[in-house]
């Protein structure tokens, strides 16, 4: 008989040879006493030092360790996504591999999930980082993300998060999205909780992710916001864009026809403008139809989300997906 672990702790590593053993020990020390079967998914994001070697060594000594290896460095989001894909627990915990998060916080995350939340986000309320280069940009980014997505999370950048596996595995993750997985997941309508976590200053190794990515984050954010809100109804969105164009086009054509009747000459620039606007609107609407087709053929479906996050009440029996919240 084999049983899937209840809990998967996912940790991406990129050149963290000084930290990986300590990380493993800290996680074991924190999670073992909780009494749940658990696994650790260590994602080696193409490290150039001995990280992989040490990780394999850990796997040899501890069968709960599962090492996922990338041949090259892809970045944090793909590493998280691969970890999430490979994890087999019902509850997934993600954290940084640099010991800045404290595994002792995992206990509170679990109890929040047990309360019925789908996503629990850590908030580094006493963040141990440089003020100017890290804390201030992140403050601004968080405010922007919160405003744009409508999911007011104080600290999107904190890697320590907990997810219900059935939900997060349905969320498409790409580009630099690990920073706002909650915002991304908000398209599925989850219950999100935020709790304070401890944060330690970096002891060993170099900090890998800096300021330079903020603008990319913002671009991605806008894309997500747009795509998430129009995914399931592209035709409507494109029509919304196309309608004013079509109206203006009709107006211009009408005007030039009226001139033709009144004066006898057709004002070509206005007539041409009208045709361009009308045809442009038509092409946009065609784009919307293509969009509908893409959505139908794609594998992201709104009804899956609603099934995962919705609850039946008052008395209907809960389905398998919700076991994590009702037991233990």
């Amino acid at each position, binding site marked *: 008989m*084999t*049983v*899937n*672990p209840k809990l998967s702790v996912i940790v991406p590593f990129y050149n963290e040879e000084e930290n990986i053993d300590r990380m493993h020990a800290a996680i074991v020390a924190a999670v073992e006493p909780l009494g749940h079967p658990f*696994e650790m998914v260590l994602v080696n994001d*193409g490290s150039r030092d001995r990280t992989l070697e040490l*990780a*394999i060594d850990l*796997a*040899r000594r501890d*069968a*709960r*360790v*599962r*090492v*996922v*290896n*990338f*041949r*090259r460095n*892809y970045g944090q989001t*793909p*590493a998280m*996504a*691969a970890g999430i894909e*490979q994890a*087999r627990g019902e509850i997934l915990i993600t954290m940084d591999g640099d010991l800045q998060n404290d595994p002792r916080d995992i206990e509170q995350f679990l109890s929040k999930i047990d309360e019925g939340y789908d996503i629990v986000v850590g908030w580094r309320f006493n963040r141990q980082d440089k003020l100017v280069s890290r804390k201030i940009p992140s403050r601004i980014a968080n405010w922007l993300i919160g405003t744009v997505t409508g999911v007011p999370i104080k600290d999107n950048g904190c890697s320590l998060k907990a997810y219900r596996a059935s939900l997060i595995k349905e969320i*498409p*993750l*790409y580009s630099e999205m690990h920073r706002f997985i909650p915002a991304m997941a908000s398209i599925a309508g989850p219950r999100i909780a935020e709790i304070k976590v401890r944060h330690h200053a970096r002891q060993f190794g170099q900090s890998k992710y800096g300021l330079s990515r903020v603008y990319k984050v913002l*671009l991605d954010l806008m*894309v997500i916001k747009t*795509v*998430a809100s*129009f*995914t399931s109804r*592209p035709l409507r969105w*494109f029509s919304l864009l196309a309608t004013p*164009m079509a109206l203006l086009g009709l107006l211009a054509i009408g*005007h030039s026809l009226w*001139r033709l009747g009144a004066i006898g000459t057709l004002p070509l*620039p*206005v007539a*041409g*403008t009208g045709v*361009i*606007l009308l*045809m*442009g609107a038509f*092409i*946009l609407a065609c*784009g919307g139809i*293509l*969009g509908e087709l*893409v*959505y139908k*053929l*794609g*594998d*992201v479906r709104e009804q899956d989300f609603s099934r995962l996050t919705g609850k039946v009440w008052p008395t209907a029996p809960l389905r398998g997906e919700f076991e994590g919240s009702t037991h233990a």
Partner: protein
Amino acid sequence: MLERTLDIELSVIIPIGSRHADAAALHAEYKAGLDALRQPYELIFVLDGPCSDFAAGLRSLLEAGHRFTVISLTRTFGEATALMAGFEHASGQIIVTLPAYHQIEAADVGKLVSALDSSDLAIGRRWPRTGGPLERLRRSVFHGLLARVTRLQYHDLGCGARAFHRRVLEEIQLYGDQHRFLPVLADRQGFRVQEVELRQSAKDRFEGVYQPREYTRGFLDIFTVFFLVRFTKKPLRFFGMVGVSTFAVGALLVTWLVVERLFFEQPLAERPALLLSSLLVVLGLQLFALGLLGELIIFTHARAIKDYQIERVIQYRDERTATVPDLEHT
């Protein structure tokens, strides 16, 4: 003579396109070079489209008792597709591709194969190389542009001699004319790519001038790679940038025209500038919409078109705990 039943480690694929050498001469040369490796190997010729002279040559070689496999495609699909067709029939762990005409000294194939000890993909570079100044310029412009786009410096992507481990093509789906960019794509998947200097064959002499078509194709190829590398996963970044700037120029122009109409009594209806501005606005919006469509495709297929490729998953079985399910090997 080799037996098919032997464990074949090496599969040699030779895609035959429209430009090819004589079958008998090519076969004899490659055979001599490959036999020198002292490894069991299989030869696969892929005829990309009707090459009746080459097919006839192969047929008479087969009748003479030589052993190799021929795959003939019904029409010309392009070298990359021909390669993939050959790959489907290849059983070796190491795949070698060789050009359809004499580019390199066949005796050097061993160098390519041994380069695989320290890399996943070895590509040939003809060196020292003949060619006039114009030809040399063409080559360096092409590879220079490519290096700018991909930040990878290669010198001779036109060389058809490559050797790689089987898993390289298992992870990369080539099509059309992408065979030339196999190193670029492989590098993106995290494979180690190595360039190996091979002697240029004395028969590899290109006389005459390249047609403008060749140049166009080269630039189109670079364009393709540019998109593959930079923007496939982020269509809106490209389309959006171009679209928004087009839209902005158009909108500014419209504003200017309207201001002139309202405050300076310039008639609007007769001005050709109106046409230009509305064109810019509409095209800008449409580009943006195309980008959105691209994002929609990425978003709804993100799990199928992954950003990453897992090399392996390592977990050891532990007898003491029954909580861990069946595990992958190391």
